C-alpha cells in the first residue's frame, strides 16, 4: 500500500507473509505476526471505535491487554461473531474480518455523537436524577432508549460451533508473566529440577523487552536473550510454557485459573482444536511477574485518535515495525517516554517536540534526546489538541499557566504519566497492597498466600535489579517447594532501562474548576470533572466514586484509569490517597470467554445422564421418557395411534386386568449389614425392625431430626444381620449420606456396614393378577406360592439362571413381585419376562401409569404428596411409627408444638363433583369460593389423575384439618371456573386390599 506506515528494517516480522483483512468492509493488508491494531496503524488507520456514552471517536491507546478504546467485533463466520475484541490483542490472520462497534450509520459519521454535544446534561449519575416523570415512562420510553444507546458490541445470535477444552495441572512453581523477570525466575526454578509452569498472555515471551530496545543481557539485546531463554525453557522436560495464556484468577490455596487462546490467531483452525483451553493449576509456590502498565496523561481532549501511550508507540515501532505517525509529539511526566521519542527519531520519524510537565528533566536519556536534536519543553503542559477524527496539533503552555501558548502540528501524540504496577493477581490472592508515598504507587505489602512478586509488579524499575530479584525468587520458590540448588548462573544485565516515577491525577489545564473533557476512563467516558462532581455530591469512598461515575468499570477494568481516578478524588477531598482507598481487584484480570470456563460441559455433557439396564429396550419399544434427577425414566409406552392419555389408560387397565412390567431400577438401594444392623435400622427409621423375621419386608419411613418426612421405601430383611433397603429415586444419594453421617458420627459404636447398591441391581416390577404366572417358569429355587411367599416377603434364588432377590410387594395394589437381578443381566431377564408376559397379554408400563395405580390405592409419593413440611401424622401414616421405641431420628422434632398443633394440613382424597373433571396438581383449595382476594387457602392438590380403573378422576390433597372434613364440599377456584370437590378417604380402588393376593 502506497501510504504504508511500515518502516523497512524495523520490527521483527519483516519477512513474514502478507495477511489480508477487512475493517468495516474495507480491505487492508498486514503481515503475519501483526495484531489487528498494528496492522491498522501500518495502514495509517487510527480511528477504530466510539466511546460508550458520548460516542466520541476513539483510536488505539495501547499495545496490550489494557486497551480501553480499540474494541471491535471479529466475525469469522455467521456463528462465530465475537464482540468487544481488543484490536491490540487480536492477532492478525489471513482473512480476518473486523467491524467497528457502537456507531450508526458509520464509524466516521456517528449520529450518537450528538451525545457529545449534549454532554453537559449527561454528567456523572445524571440518570439517578431524572427520567422519573411520568412514572410509567421509565419502562415504556426512557429505559428502552437508554438500553439501546448502551452496550458496546452485539451478542452472537447463533449457537457457537467451536468447542472448548479444560485441564487441571499441578506444579511446584507457577510463574505468571514471561517478561525479563518471569523468564529469570522460571529459569532459576527450572534448573533446580522442580515442575515449572510459565504463563504469558502474549504470543511470544519477552514482555516489555518487546519495546525496550536499549536493554542488553548476556551480550545480546534483551529480546534476543528472551527468545533464547524461552527456547531453553521449552526444551526442559520439567517446564511447561503456556503462551497466549492469561492468568485471570487467583483463588484460595494457590489455585490459579488460566485461559489459553488456542485458535483465535489462526486463519483456518483445525476441526479438532479447541478454541480455548481452561487450565486450573494448583501450585506450591506462585511467582508473580505481571509487570506494570503505563498510564496516560489526563488533559483536555486526550482521547483524540492518534494520542496513545508512549510504550505502545514504541512497541509498534520496535516489535511490529510500524510508525504511529510521521510527525509525532510527546507529552510526559516520566523518563520512559523519551526512549520512545529516541527510537522513533532513529527510525526516521520526525519528533515535533517533547512536552514534559517536570521543570528541569535531566539524566542520560534526556541528554541523549537533546543530542538527537529533539526539542524539549520542560515545565509545560499540553492544554488542548486540534483535529476531530485524528489529532492534528497540540497546544502547549507553561504548566503554571499564562498566555504563552504555542500550537505545534502533530499527527500523533505519545504520552506517559508513569507506570502502575500490575498488582491485580497479588490483590486477588488476598494479599494487602501498601501505598508507597515516595513513588506514589500501591505495591505488594502483606502476603496472604505462598507467592512472591518480582519486577515491575513489585515496583522494581531497573532491569538489573529485576533480574537479581527474579532469579533469587525463582530459586527460593523452587527450594521452598522441595527443589535442589540450581546449576545455572544468574543472567547478567549489561544495559538497562529505567522507568522512573511520573504523576497521578489531572494535568494542568484539567485541574479543579475547569470544564474541559480530560478523560480518566476512556471507554466509560469518565472525565476528571466527573470524579470531582462525585466527590462534591458526597461520594467519599473510592468505591462510591467508582460506582457513581463508573470509573474503572469498563471492559479494561480501570487498568489505566484507577490510579488517576483515585488521585483526583483524593485531591478533591484533600486527603491522602490511601485514606480514600483502593478499589478491590477481582477476577478476571482480563475478560474470559464463557466457553473457556464451560469447557466440555455443554449439551449432553452438561450433566451426566443415567440410564437403566433396560433403557435400550424401552427405547426400542417406543417409550417416551421423563427426566427424574439425572435419570431418564420410561414415562409411558404409546402404541401406534395412541396419545399419552390413551397409552396410560391402557397401561393402567392392563396391569389390573392381567399384568404389567415396570422398570423400577432407579430406586435407591442400600445394603445394611452387620451384627447391629437391626439396631441401626431402629434408629434411622420410625418403624420397629428387631422383630421383623428374615425373609419378610416392611414399609420403612425415615424422618429428618426435625420430625418431617424425609424418605420412604420397602425394606427386606435377608438375614438377621442383613437388610436390603430401598429409597426413593431422588433420595438415594442423600439417604445414603444421612445414614453414613449418623453411623460414623452419632452411632459409631454400632457394628454396621453400609453399601450403596443402587447401580448394582436392575429391578423389574411385575404387577397384576397374572404376575406370578409370568415369573413362575423362570424362577428357580424359590417357592412362590402365597403360602410360602406371602405379600411383603423376600427370597433369594435364581431367575433365568442368574441370582435374584425376589420381593413379593406391590406399589399398584395388585399381586406383585419385584425382581432384582445384577444390572448386567437386567435387559436379558426383562426380555425373558416380557416374552412370558406376552403370553398373558401383559404390557410394559411407565412412571405415569405407576403414579396413577399407586394413587388409586392412596399410596403416597414422598416429594409429591409430601414436601418437606409434612409430618407422619399429616400424611396419615402414624402406623409406621414403632410406638414402643424410645429413640429414632426425628422422635423429638416431631413433637414440637407446631408439629402437633390442631388444624395442620392432612392428606385426604378428593373427588370432583363432576367425575370427568380432572383437577390440576398444585391447585389450591378454599372453603368459601366467594370470598375476595386474597383468599384463605386451606390446602392444595398434590396428585391428580384420570383413573380409567375407577372410571373417574381421583386426587390426593393436603387440607387443613382434612381428616375431620370427610364428605365436606370444598372448592378449587381456577382462573375460568370454580370446581366443587368432596373430601374423601385416600383409597379409591379395592379398599379392602383383596387384589394384593390376586
Amino acid at each position, binding site marked *: 500500500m502506497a501510504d504504508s506506515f511500515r518502516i523497512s528494517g524495523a520490527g521483527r516480522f519483516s519477512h513474514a507473509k502478507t495477511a489480508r483483512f477487512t475493517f468495516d468492509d474495507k480491505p487492508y493488508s498486514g503481515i503475519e505476526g501483526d495484531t489487528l491494531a498494528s496492522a491498522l496503524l501500518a495502514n495509517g488507520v487510527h480511528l477504530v471505535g466510539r466511546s460508550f456514552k458520548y460516542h466520541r471517536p476513539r483510536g488505539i491507546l495501547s499495545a496490550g491487554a489494557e486497551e480501553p478504546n480499540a474494541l471491535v467485533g471479529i466475525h469469522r463466520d455467521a456463528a462465530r461473531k465475537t464482540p468487544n475484541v481488543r484490536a491490540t490483542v487480536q492477532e492478525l490472520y489471513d482473512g480476518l474480518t473486523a467491524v467497528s462497534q457502537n456507531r450508526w450509520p458509520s464509524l466516521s459519521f456517528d449520529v450518537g455523537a450528538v451525545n457529545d454535544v449534549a454532554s453537559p446534561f449527561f454528567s456523572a449519575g445524571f440518570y439517578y436524577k431524572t427520567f422519573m416523570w411520568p412514572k410509567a415512562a421509565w419502562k415504556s420510553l426512557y429505559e428502552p432508549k437508554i438500553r439501546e444507546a448502551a452496550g458496546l458490541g452485539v451478542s452472537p445470535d447463533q449457537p457457537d460451533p467451536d468447542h472448548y477444552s479444560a485441564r487441571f495441572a499441578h506444579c511446584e512453581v507457577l510463574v505468571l508473566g514471561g517478561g525479563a523477570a518471569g523468564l529469570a525466575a522460571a529459569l532459576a526454578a527450572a534448573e533446580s529440577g522442580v515442575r515449572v509452569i510459565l504463563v504469558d498472555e502474549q504470543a511470544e515471551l519477552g514482555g516489555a523487552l518487546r519495546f525496550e530496545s536499549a536493554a542488553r543481557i548476556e551480550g545480546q539485546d534483551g529480546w534476543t536473550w528472551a527468545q533464547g531463554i524461552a527456547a531453553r525453557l521449552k526444551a526442559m522436560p520439567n517446564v511447561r510454557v503456556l503462551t497466549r495464556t492469561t492468568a485471570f484468577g487467583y*483463588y*484460595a*490455596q494457590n*489455585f490459579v485459573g488460566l485461559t489459553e487462546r488456542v485458535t483465535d490467531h489462526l486463519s483456518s483452525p483445525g476441526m479438532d482444536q479447541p478454541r480455548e483451553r481452561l487450565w*486450573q493449576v*494448583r501450585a506450591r509456590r506462585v511467582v508473580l511477574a505481571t509487570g506494570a502498565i503505563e498510564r496516560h496523561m489526563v488533559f483536555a481532549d486526550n482521547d483524540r485518535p492518534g494520542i496513545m501511550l508512549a510504550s505502545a508507540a514504541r512497541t509498534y515501532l520496535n516489535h511490529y515495525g510500524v510508525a504511529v505517525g510521521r510527525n509525532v509529539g510527546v507529552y510526559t511526566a516520566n523518563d520512559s517516554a523519551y526512549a520512545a521519542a529516541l527510537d522513533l527519531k532513529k527510525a526516521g520519524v520526525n519528533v515535533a517536540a517533547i512536552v514534559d510537565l517536570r521543570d528541569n528533566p535531566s539524566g542520560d536519556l534526556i541528554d541523549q534526546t537533546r543530542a538527537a536534536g529533539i526539542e524539549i519543553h520542560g515545565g509545560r503542559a499540553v492544554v488542548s489538541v486540534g483535529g476531530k477524527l485524528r489529532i492534528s496539533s497540540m497546544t502547549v503552555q507553561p504548566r503554571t499557566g499564562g498566555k504563552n501558548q504555542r500550537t505545534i502540528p502533530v499527527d500523533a501524540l505519545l504520552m506517559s504519566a508513569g507506570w502502575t504496577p500490575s498488582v491485580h493477581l497479588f490483590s486477588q490472592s*488476598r494479599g494487602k497492597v501498601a501505598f508507597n508515598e515516595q513513588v506514589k504507587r500501591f505495591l505488594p505489602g502483606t502476603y*496472604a498466600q505462598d507467592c512472591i512478586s518480582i519486577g515491575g509488579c513489585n515496583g522494581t524499575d531497573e532491569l538489573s535489579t529485576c533480574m537479581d530479584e527474579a532469579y533469587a525468587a525463582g530459586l527460593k520458590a523452587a527450594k521452598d517447594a522441595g527443589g535442589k540448588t540450581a546449576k545455572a548462573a544468574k543472567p547478567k544485565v549489561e544495559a538497562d532501562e529505567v522507568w522512573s516515577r511520573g504523576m497521578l491525577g489531572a494535568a494542568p489545564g484539567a485541574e479543579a474548576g475547569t470544564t474541559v473533557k480530560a478523560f480518566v476512563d476512556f471507554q466509560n467516558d469518565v472525565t476528571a470533572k466527573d470524579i470531582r462532581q462525585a466527590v462534591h455530591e458526597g461520594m467519599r469512598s473510592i468505591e462510591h466514586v467508582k460506582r457513581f461515575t463508573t470509573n474503572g468499570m469498563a471492559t479494561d477494568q480501570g487498568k489505566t484509569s484507577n490510579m488517576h481516578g483515585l488521585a483526583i478524588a483524593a485531591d478533591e477531598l484533600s486527603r491522602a490517597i490511601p485514606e480514600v482507598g483502593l478499589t478491590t481487584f477481582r477476577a478476571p484480570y482480563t475478560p474470559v470467554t464463557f466457553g473457556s470456563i464451560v469447557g466440555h460441559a455443554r449439551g449432553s455433557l452438561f450433566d451426566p445422564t443415567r440410564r437403566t439396564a433396560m433403557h435400550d429396550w424401552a427405547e426400542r419399544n417406543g417409550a417416551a421418557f421423563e427426566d427424574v434427577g439425572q435419570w431418564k425414566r420410561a414415562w409411558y409406552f404409546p402404541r401406534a395411534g395412541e396419545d399419552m392419555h390413551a397409552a396410560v389408560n391402557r397401561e393402567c387397565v392392563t396391569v389390573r386386568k392381567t399384568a404389567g412390567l415396570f422398570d423400577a431400577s432407579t430406586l435407591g438401594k442400600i445394603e445394611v449389614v452387620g451384627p447391629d444392623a437391626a439396631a441401626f435400622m431402629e434408629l434411622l427409621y420410625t418403624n420397629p425392625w428387631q422383630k421383623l423375621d428374615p425373609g419378610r419386608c416392611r414399609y420403612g419411613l425415615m424422618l429428618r*431430626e*426435625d420430625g418431617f418426612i424425609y424418605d420412604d421405601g420397602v425394606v427386606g430383611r435377608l438375614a438377621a444381620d442383613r437388610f436390603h433397603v430401598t429409597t426413593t429415586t431422588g433420595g438415594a444419594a442423600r439417604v445414603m*449420606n444421612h445414614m*453414613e*453421617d449418623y453411623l*460414623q*458420627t*452419632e452411632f*459409631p459404636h454400632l457394628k454396621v456396614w453400609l453399601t450403596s447398591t443402587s447401580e448394582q441391581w436392575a429391578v423389574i416390577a411385575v404387577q397384576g393378577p397374572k404376575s406370578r404366572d409370568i415369573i413362575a417358569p423362570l424362577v428357580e429355587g424359590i417357592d412362590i406360592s402365597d403360602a410360602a411367599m406371602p405379600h411383603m416377603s423376600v427370597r433369594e434364588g435364581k431367575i433365568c439362571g442368574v441370582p435374584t432377590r425376589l420381593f413379593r410387594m406391590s406399589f399398584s395394589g395388585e399381586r406383585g413381585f419385584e425382581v432384582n437381578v445384577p444390572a448386567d443381566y437386567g435387559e436379558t431377564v426383562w426380555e425373558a419376562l416380557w416374552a412370558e408376559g406376552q403370553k398373558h397379554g401383559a404390557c410394559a408400563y411407565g412412571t405415569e401409569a405407576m403414579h396413577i395405580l399407586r394413587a388409586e390405592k392412596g399410596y403416597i409419593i414422598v416429594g409429591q404428596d409430601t414436601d418437606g413440611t409434612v409430618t407422619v401424622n399429616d400424611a396419615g401414616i402414624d402406623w409406621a411409627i414403632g410406638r414402643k421405641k*424410645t*429413640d429414632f431420628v426425628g*422422635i*423429638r*422434632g416431631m413433637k*414440637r*408444638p407446631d408439629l402437633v398443633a390442631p388444624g395442620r394440613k392432612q392428606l385426604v382424597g378428593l373427588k370432583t363433583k363432576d367425575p370427568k373433571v380432572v383437577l390440576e396438581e398444585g391447585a389450591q383449595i378454599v372453603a368459601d369460593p366467594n370470598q375476595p382476594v386474597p383468599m384463605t387457602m386451606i390446602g392444595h392438590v398434590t396428585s391428580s389423575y384420570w383413573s380409567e380403573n375407577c372410571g373417574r378422576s381421583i386426587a390426593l390433597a393436603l387440607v387443613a384439618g382434612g381428616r375431620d372434613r370427610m364428605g365436606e364440599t370444598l372448592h378449587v377456584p381456577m382462573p375460568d371456573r370454580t370446581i366443587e370437590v368432596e373430601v374423601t378417604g385416600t383409597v379409591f380402588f379395592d379398599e379392602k386390599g383383596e387384589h394384593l393376593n390376586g
Partner: protein
Amino acid sequence: MLLIRCPYCEEERPELEFRNAGEAHVARPADIAAISDEDFEAFFFIRSNPKGIIYERWRHIHGCARFFNAVRDTVSDKFVMTYKAGEPKPKKLPGVAK
C-alpha cells in the same frame, strides 16, 4: 477451590472430593426424646457461625467417604488442621494466636 487434608487418607485433596457437613461438636443428646423445645432448638437450629476460627465437619465423600473435623479460619478460608471424627476438640491450635 479449597485444598483439604483428609486425616484418614493423610493427603491434601481438592474440595470437589468433599462435602461440608456443618458445625462440628454439636452432639445429638443421648436423651433426645426427653429434651425441652429450647434445648432442641439449640441443638438443631442455633449455630455459632463464627467470623474467625470455626470447627466444622467435612465428608470425603468422593474419596474414603469418612466424616472428619476441620479447624478453619472463616475470614481467610485457611485450614488450621483437620482431625478424625470422634477426636476431642483440639485445645491448642498450631499457628493461631489466642
